[in-house]
């Protein structure tokens, strides 16, 4: 598992959390549910809390069928035991407005991800180009995933179940490689050095 040294000085403050009124949903789930789920999973930090957590997810998913609950439990187990290796998919070329790429593993894009395009991976996302669209790393709830881009100026960034919106403006100034990762339930962006 690739992990960044987290005692690096964080130059940037945590990005503002997405408010539910933005109306984003993930595979048809209502936004409220995602946030509940995110909260529930953030609390699950040790195995002793696992049972409690499972209860919570079950409660929040009353209306959902069994398979969804199973998926969630599977997600939590995966998270607890931390995936140590990913397969990775390489894509050469720009992803343009309206294009969508999803992969069970890590994604490496040799090109730009333009505004309106979306990349989603259960593992990490590396973009050797500019990220101007939406990236979702660790989309099965893995908050150990990270997003790297030579120019990290996305519309929106998601890691695990955490969604952030990037601050408006200064989008053209940024040209340095950066990566985004999760710590204490918040997405941080640090320069890659």
């Amino acid at each position, binding site marked *: 598992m690739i992990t960044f040294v987290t005692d690096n000085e964080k130059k940037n403050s945590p990005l503002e959390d997405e408010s539910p009124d933005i109306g984003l949903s993930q595979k048809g789930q209502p936004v409220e549910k995602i946030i509940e789920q995110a909260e529930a999973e953030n609390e699950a930090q040790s195995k002793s809390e696992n049972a409690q957590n499972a209860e919570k997810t079950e409660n929040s998913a009353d209306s959902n069928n069994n398979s969804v609950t199973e998926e969630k439990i599977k997600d939590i187990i995966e998270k607890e035991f931390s995936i140590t290796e990913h397969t990775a998919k390489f894509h050469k070329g720009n*992803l*343009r*407005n*309206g*294009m969508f790429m999803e992969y069970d593993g890590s994604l490496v894009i040799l090109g*730009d991800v*333009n*505004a*309106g395009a979306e990349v989603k991976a259960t593992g990490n996302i590396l973009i050797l180009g500019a990220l101007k669209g939406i990236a979702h790393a660790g989309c099965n709830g893995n908050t150990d995933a990270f997003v790297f881009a030579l120019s990290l100026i996305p519309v929106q960034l998601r890691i695990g179940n955490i969604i952030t919106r990037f601050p408006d403006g200064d989008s053209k100034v940024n040209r340095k490689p950066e990566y985004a990762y999760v710590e204490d339930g918040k997405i941080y962006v640090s320069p890659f050095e």
Partner: protein
Amino acid sequence: MGEVIVITSGKGGVGKTTTSANLGCGLAIAGKKVALVDADIGLRNLDVVMGLENRIVYDLVDVVEGKCRLKQALIKDKRYAGLYLLPAAQTRDKDAVSPEQMQKLCENLKEEEFDYIIIDCPAGIEQGFKNAIAGADRALVVTTPEVSAVRDADRIIGLLEANELPNPSLILNRVRPDMVDRGDMMSMDDVTEILAIDIIGVVPDDESIVVQTNKGEPAVTVESSKAGQAYRNITQRILGNDVPLMEFKQEETFMNKLKKLFHKG
């Protein structure tokens, strides 16, 4: 063998029809045999811009449905030898034609010994767009230096690549050099950086376009028109000649000089 060029943009109102008319005229003036095809069924405009509206008898849908022969529907432009227009139907919609039928139509036009077949694509990415690009060999993407138009152009380029029409060329329309200088408008470099495709021409925002469009005579025919000059340059580039991109220099009027003086101070 003729070349089929589709003029597309995604967003409406960026100048697809104007560009089609001007390039068609320009190529005809250069001595080529050109067919302009209006693929915007139900919202036809190219005939109006060309000033040929009153001569329509048969249209594209009639040809496709076999109600008339191709030659009957082609309107010959009397002003320029070798320029023909195939108008769209106004009372039908985009579903009246299928991509396969358009492909066949393009092949038939090539058999008529046209050097260039220019297809004016409708706005949007639905049936009309799919029809328009079906028979094309090459695509020109028109955009204006606005965020919305550039976004749509990006989507269109992606769709063109997915439909085996790679390497489209870009026409940047309605550029206002004064605004670019002030930093209020995206420059050519800004747009090409986002879209990452070759630029084939930059057309300045020009009053003469409106005047000429209303007259039904494309601006490319007017010597003094800046936009006309830009379209003449694009025509040359389509023909394979290397023409440098136009440079827009503000005329040094007394007021501009005065303004510069103040800025320096």
